């Protein structure tokens, strides 16, 4: 094996290793709050808006009877 081949292999490894690390990071299981998906956001927003509709009644300012 020539020096050039060894250098080429090392160069390739240097290039590929960050990709492997990124891919592992990308696909590994994480805390749900670390990686928000559209579905998670949609569910949170829907629950927020529903609760807000209910709380509107609690904070309704009663009109003066005068």
């Amino acid at each position, binding site marked *: 094996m020539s020096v050039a081949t060894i250098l080429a292999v090392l160069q390739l490894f240097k290039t590929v290793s960050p990709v492997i690390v990124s891919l592992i990071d990308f696909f590994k299981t994480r805390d749900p*709050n670390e990686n928000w998906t559209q579905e*998670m956001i949609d569910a949170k*927003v829907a629950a927020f808006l529903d609760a807000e509709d209910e709380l509107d009644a609690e904070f309704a300012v009663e009109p003066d009877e005068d």
Partner: protein
Amino acid sequence: MKRKLTVLLLLVLLVGCGSSHQQRVNVISNSADVLLTSYQTAELAIVAAHDSGAINDELFAKIAAKRNQVSPIMRRIAVAWQQVPRVDSSVEAFLLSPDFQAGLVLVIEIAELAGLDDVLDNLRPIKEATEQ
């Protein structure tokens, strides 16, 4: 070899762009989640305190007026958050938007009026971060 390198480069770019997009969605989502959750926690605590008599009618009316002012803003923030994964807006654009800033200030005011220290503890770091 050239083709392999091109494919590798495209993969690197794809992963790079994907993780940076996810990072942006995460930062915005964590901030929006803290603000909206803190706000609703405050609302529930205020209603409970009013029901138990810990907050009198006069103070409740004052808080309710402010809450009714902030509610439409918080609804708009929630809808804007829902759009974030699909649109290309920056973290700064979201956190420094007039709605987010106004919502943050008003929820802090409500929490101060009601004496909700836990809510204030959650929101102050966001306020300080957006002021920098």
